[in-house]
């Protein structure tokens, strides 16, 4: 079904659906609301949406079950999960379950818009990729996936294990493409501890929005890529090698890997 509306927001709190509707409408987007997963599913089946924003804790089924149900019905609409239980576990779990983003409540209008704009670009890119594979045009690659030996958290950040036990962390090409040209990069300092599922970098885009990158691994920062901070443009040129962000000493790598997706599976 061809999407006719931009966003469906599912939340049992109407103050939130209304707030999202208000903010997104002001951004020129068409927004519908649903108070639970059942109503949401009804709307999705009647009307196509480009993006769904769903709460995790709802009266009937939770956001994870809603997401699973959508995929089971072969509805590819990207889903952003949001919850008041804003823990790193929920963030990691949401991304692991196939949500494209996780917005912890409460959020500012800018945080919402940043996530929504990325989501809409992501949806567009996905649709284009699907169209190009249908039309058998393998030359027109929409984005470059990470190398097969890498792991990713959601579609946004990647992790590469080094032989010496350290790991490199970076941002995927797909995430960069959902962001409108990175102008500045704010990173953690050497010695800081990063936690999987919490913010590790802020990318300031040309449109003034700040995009938060969730860290794929927990550990101590031992090195920061100064070159990429100095010239953020280098990030988009080579996101997987020269454009790395951190070198990290992981504290619980085996635990963290359970929530990451092996990039080798992306090419099957």
């Amino acid at each position, binding site marked *: 079904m061809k999407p006719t509306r931009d966003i469906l927001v599912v939340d049992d*709190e109407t*103050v*939130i659906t209304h*707030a*999202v509707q*208000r*903010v997104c409408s*002001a951004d020129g987007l068409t927004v519908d609301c649903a108070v639970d997963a059942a109503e949401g599913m009804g709307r999705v089946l009647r009307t196509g949406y480009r993006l769904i924003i769903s709460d995790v*804790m709802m009266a009937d089924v939770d956001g994870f079950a809603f997401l699973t149900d959508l995929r089971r019905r072969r509805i590819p609409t990207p889903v952003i999960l949001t*919850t*008041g*239980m*804003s*823990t*790193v*576990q929920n963030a990691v779990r949401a991304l692991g379950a196939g949500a494209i983003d996780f917005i*912890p*409540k*409460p*959020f*500012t*209008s*800018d945080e*919402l818009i940043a996530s929504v704009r990325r989501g809409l670009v992501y949806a567009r890119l996905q649709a284009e990729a699907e169209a190009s594979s249908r039309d058998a045009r393998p030359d027109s690659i929409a984005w470059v996936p990470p190398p097969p030996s890498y792991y990713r958290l959601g579609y946004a950040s990647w992790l590469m294990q080094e032989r010496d036990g350290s790991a490199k962390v970076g941002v995927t090409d797909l995430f960069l493409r959902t962001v409108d040209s990175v102008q500045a990069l704010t990173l953690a300092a050497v*010695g800081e*501890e990063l*936690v999987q599922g919490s913010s590790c970098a802020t990318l300031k885009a040309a449109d003034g929005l700040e995009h938060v990158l969730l860290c794929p691994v*927990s550990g*101590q920062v031992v090195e920061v890529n100064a070159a990429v901070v100095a010239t953020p443009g280098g990030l988009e040129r080579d996101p997987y090698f020269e454009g790395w962000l951190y070198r990290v000493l992981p*504290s*619980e790598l085996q*635990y*963290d890997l359970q929530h990451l997706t092996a990039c080798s599976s992306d090419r099957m």
Partner: protein
Amino acid sequence: MKPWRTLGLKLTVAVGAVALVTIAIFALVSSRSDNRALLAEVERHANQLSEAVKSSTEFDMLLNQRDRISETVRRIGQDPSIQRIRVMNKTGEVIYSSDSAEIGRSLDKNAEACTLCHKADEPLEHVDIAQRTRVYRVHPDSQRLLGIINPIYNTLTCSSASCHYHPRAQKVLGVLDVTLPLTEVDKAIRQGQVEVGMLALASFITLSVLIGLLVRRWVTLPVQRLAEGTRHVAGGDLSYVIPEVRDDELGMLARSFNNMTQRLSEARLQLVQSDKLASLGRLAAGVAHEINNPLTGVLTYSSFLQKRTKDQPEVQEDLKVIVRETIRCREIVKSLLDFARQSVPKKGQAAINEIIARAASVVENQLQLNHVKLVQALDADVPPVTVDANQMQQVFINLFVNASDAIGPDGGGGTITVATSRLKLSPIGITQVKKAQCPKRHSLINAEVRIDNKPSIRVRARSEGSEGFIYRDPMYGMARHQFGIAPEPGMHVEVTCPECSSSLNVHGAPCPECGAATFQFEVPGKGFVEGCTNRACTWQRWTDLEKGGDKDFIEIRVRDTGSGIAHEEIPRIFEPFYSTKGQKGNGLGLAVIWGIIDNHNGSISVESEVGVGTTFIIRIPVEP
């Protein structure tokens, strides 16, 4: 307590009674012996007198000068210390007497005094002195008398005298009877008895008073202080300390009582904390969800409005405050969630000294501003520990910041000393079984039935048709198990996994203490814990844990020279939202620390003195 029921009085009375009986027996024996000695003296005197009378009259008798004899007897008998002197002939007739009225009277040979010699109707010829003496009263009310008889034998001179009155064959011619009054002796005896009695009474009173005083000092007062202590503890005041402890058994009891209340107070603190934290965890999760939703409305609308009113500076300022403060709320709720330990600690091998050094570098600037010196007395030999370095760093940052705040910005600064050391502690009684499984790897941990607020280990038990659960105490070494089934002693108990019914019994290995059936479950990676099916038996064995002996712990002491914590405040400092910093802190710092340390199977305690400073003591097991 009624005064006559007191231990002191009972002891006093008992000791007094024993003393009284002892003194009485002594007095009796002593008075009897005095009595005997006095009587013997009188006896000897009477005998002497009797012999003297006999000798002085012997010559007159030989000459048969009866008047002279009579006169001699009368004169001697006039002495006031002599009651009476008389001479009887062999037929019992009084022939001479100091009492002239008696002369010519015949005495009854059957009278008591006479029977000894006259049993066979014939006068005896030989009677020893003890038998010759008699003590008697004429009348029950009259004074005592001592009489001594002295036989007058028929000597050669008698039978050959010119008068030749006595035939030779006759052995005894008559009897001299001397009677002395015992008035003086009796007086002396009575006086002696009174003296001994007085002495006994005085000793009894002195002893009783002395014992009473000592018992009061050594027993009653210490016991009263102990009782006072138990009343305080019963009333919930575990900080009560029994004062003035002596060096005796009761002192030992008082000391161990003080020790017990201190331990109890620590244990209660830990217990109350884990209880509170568990409920707070659940509460926080609920509150976070409930509060974050309305906060989303506030934050989204206010930030949206802020963006849309960029051209109105006066509104911008106000909205900025709303957005900033709402974001502050968001951070508070986030810290609540962090505190509720939704985040699993990510543990790894780490050097505690490095973590401390890192934490120190984080707070360095703040400490410098407060003129606080941080001294690191770190033992370079402490082994690496399995901890969540991030969380542990948070612990030290919080402690350093707290210490710095306690020292205060004014007052010329102070010192924080952080010291690490290694120590060994027995794992029994302090190790919690956090994972337990059956042979098919089903978890036996049951969070619904909690023992000491910790999830218990649940197994199913079946015996002779009855069936129920046994909830084992998760603290190894304690045996506060809960039995949902009461198997008869000696009955076999079948123990199984509640989920898959795999048998957990250890066959052919009866309990070494009571002989009942035993069972075991696995603690993944840490061997098996064995237990007994007899509810009255506390036997359990965890070979892997016990063979390791005492466990290594790292102790970290963070001492400051700050304002200290009042004694009554100490039990509350680990409570969430308990803050003495007013606006400065949110009161979660120490609670977060407590949560993290508990998560690492460690313990935290505090020693503090107002005006002197505070020391936090953290113990972390080296092995996780």
